[in-house]
């Protein structure tokens, strides 16, 4: 009967029952990918139950949206999932374009697709690096960041910012692609396939890595759908569903790529699915860069946007899952209500089901494998 447990930050909590102890993985825990606090009810080494306490990073984005014009709100969208800012932007811009009933010109749509796919690779790279670091492999994180740096350089050349890029505007693009954009992307994609093989050799057949991830945090297909889980986590449980194929947006319908899925839905499968997704994204980029159509980059919409009253729900396939925007407009320049459907927030709900019965060391791996970003969870 071990006495009180003090987490990193929290106050001591006294002991429960016979040998059940509450262990606090506090907001400052090194491996909770941000300010997430998990209250674990432990029975010896096993996790009997867990409760995620979130809200430390809540900035009230939806309330702010009601007091900003459509264009002014666009940069806020990048601050939610700060690891995949470009795809947030794409989601929001396309939702508003649907609200206005217009379409971005073909050239803009293709460039948007390329940048979103590059952002997906960057987001997966960051996930892989931190996930491997949590499980103890010290080297992959540096390899991943080296590749991610290349992508961020392309973003910086294109729109001046690396992380919260605000790369797209409602109706199309603000900037024409800088000359050499195609070469940079092609060069990156070409040597990226060798790099992915590097990670694969380091991790995929690594006995310890397999030992630490196989059979950990299992989520079967039925639970996944019931819990509303989307993205790589859902595909790893065996559901072959990707919004880019099911309901194509931007220019995804012009390229062929396949959707990786696995069956058992454990941490190893999610790892394999995400690695395969990176390869597919690379394929899309290569196809897209081949023939970027010429033409205008901005649809003809006025400076002041006054969408007709009504509502729209538009969602895209963000790196973490289905990112949806439900926008209600009352005909003024400011949206009446913007509701963001955050993939990380809903995927995190599945954490309790995955963590039950696992060991403390696995909790860290499970948090990593769901790939959450607290900016998006708390909004």
């Amino acid at each position: 009967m071990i006495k009180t447990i003090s987490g990193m930050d929290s106050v001591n909590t006294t002991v429960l029952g016979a040998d059940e102890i509450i262990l606090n993985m506090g907001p400052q825990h090194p491996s909770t990918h941000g300010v997430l606090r998990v209250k674990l009810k432990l029975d010896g080494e096993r996790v009997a139950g867990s409760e995620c306490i979130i809200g430390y990073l809540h900035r009230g984005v939806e309330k702010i949206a009601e007091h900003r014009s459509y264009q002014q709100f666009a940069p806020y969208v990048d601050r939610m999932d700060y690891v995949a800012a470009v795809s947030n932007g794409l989601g929001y811009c396309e939702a508003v374009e649907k609200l206005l009933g217009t379409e971005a010109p073909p050239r803009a749509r293709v460039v948007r697709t390329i940048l979103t796919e590059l952002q997906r690779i960057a987001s997966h790279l960051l996930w892989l690096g931190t996930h491997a670091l949590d499980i103890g492999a010290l080297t992959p994180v540096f390899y991943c960041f080296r590749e991610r740096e290349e992508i961020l350089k392309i973003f910086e050349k294109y729109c001046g910012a690396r992380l919260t890029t605000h790369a797209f505007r409602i109706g199309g693009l603000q900037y024409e692609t800088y000359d050499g954009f195609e070469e940079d992307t092609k060069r990156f994609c070409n040597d990226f396939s060798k790099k992915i093989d590097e990670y694969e050799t380091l991790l995929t057949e690594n006995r310890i890595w397999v030992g630490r991830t196989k059979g950990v945090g299992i989520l079967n297909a039925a639970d996944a759908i019931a819990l509303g889980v989307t993205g790589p986590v859902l595909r790893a449980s065996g559901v072959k569903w990707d919004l880019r194929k099911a309901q194509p947006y931007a220019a995804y319908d012009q390229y062929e790529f396949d959707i990786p899925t696995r069956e058992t839905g454990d941490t190893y499968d999610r790892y394999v699915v995400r690695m395969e997704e990176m390869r597919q994204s690379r394929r899309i980029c290569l196809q897209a860069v081949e023939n970027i159509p010429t033409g205008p980059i901005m649809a003809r919409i006025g400076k002041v946007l006054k969408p007709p009253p009504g509502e729209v729900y538009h969602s895209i396939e963000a790196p973490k899952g289905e990112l949806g925007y439900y926008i209600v407009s009352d005909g003024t320049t400011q949206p009446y209500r913007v509701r963001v459907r955050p993939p990380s927030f809903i995927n995190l709900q599945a954490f309790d089901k995955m963590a039950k019965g696992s060991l403390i060391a696995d909790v860290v791996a499970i948090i990593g494998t769901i790939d959450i970003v607290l900016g998006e969870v708390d909004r």
Partner: protein
Amino acid sequence: MGHLIPQSIMPFVLPVVYAVVIVAVLPLLAGYIVLMERKVMADMQARLGPMRVGPHGLLQPIADAVKLLLKEDIIPDKADRLMFWFAPLVSVTMALLAYSALAIGPAFQIADLNIGLLFILAISSLGIYGIVLGGWASNSHYSLLGALRSAAQLVSYETAAGLALISVLLLAGSLSMKDIVQAQSDQGVWFGFSVPFGFFIYLVGSIAETNRAPFDLPEAESELVAGYMTEYSGFRWSLYFLAEYANMVIVAGIATTLFLGGWLRPGARYHEQIPGTSIEFLDALPALLTLGVALYCLSLVPKQPVKIQKIVMALVAGLCVIIAGVLAGALVAPPAVMQGIHGAFWFMAKVFAYIYAFLWIRFTFPRYRFDQLMRLGWRFLIPLALVNVIGVGVAIVLRQQWAWGPIVSLIPTTLATLGVAMLLAKDDAPVSEAQTADGE
């Protein structure tokens, strides 16, 4: 000089001098191993590692030492003061004590105990107290959990490492370090090659014993913060740190002596000489190597940005030149002296090679979970070590009964052990009964 010291304590003078040298050199050595680790880690991760303090970060260990000395030394309030102060001492003394039996060169050995190897094993097993008491004394749940886990890990992996050593002792026939190396030079083959499985098990066991690489679960950052060292800070923490690195060097020393032929020069048998001189090429190698390093350092001197770094780099180059001179001088000196100095060089070279292997493994493998760690230890390593010991025993019988050559007799048993290893490793799951049937 002999007559100066009274006769009664004559036999103690040389060991005391060696002991003082080792105790003085060790913190420095530990610091530079840390630097080596950070540099190698950086090199593997496509980055540079510490470059700021001194040329190429060479003065980094000194900076670390000074920092640790100046850092405030916090003792948790409800901690058990006596134990809190006593625990790191236990760790460090045990680590230093184990050096007494280590034979660095034929001449350079503090005490040639005829139970040398056993002595080192016993002393390093006492190191556990430092960890367990430290965990208990800092009175925080995290360190207690970490301490218990690392103690359990040490105990279980010591058995595996011990069994691996036994298989070598069967061949060497004696416990004293000198005799083991002598046996290796007599048989003309390093035990690492004649008992490959023993070497493999010992490598894994020693990594686990010093809490490093894939087995560094007790201080796994992600779960239990820093294990038993959580509450320690400043100089006290550096004692633990020193003990860990000293243990690493001891374990490397044991492995070199038993498996890599101690101070024997690699390729002891072929003797072609440098034309026109009587010096064998391989003997001249150490001198040439250090000379090469010296020249490289000299070439770096102009490139150093800061003036002070130029001086330091020049000093380093000078040091290398002196070592090269000593090594070259030893060539012409009488064989005993040459053997002593070159022996020490080869021994240190092998120890650093072994440590490099430690670092390499550390940066490629993720961390084991605690139950996997235990399963690997108890269900894979120890049975394999047992089978290995039986195998070597059978080999010796073969050699004595039918006078097969030392190598020939070992081949069948090594293959048998290989078979068992595959069997055990096939399913990481519980060990099947088949493993006892072996050892024909």
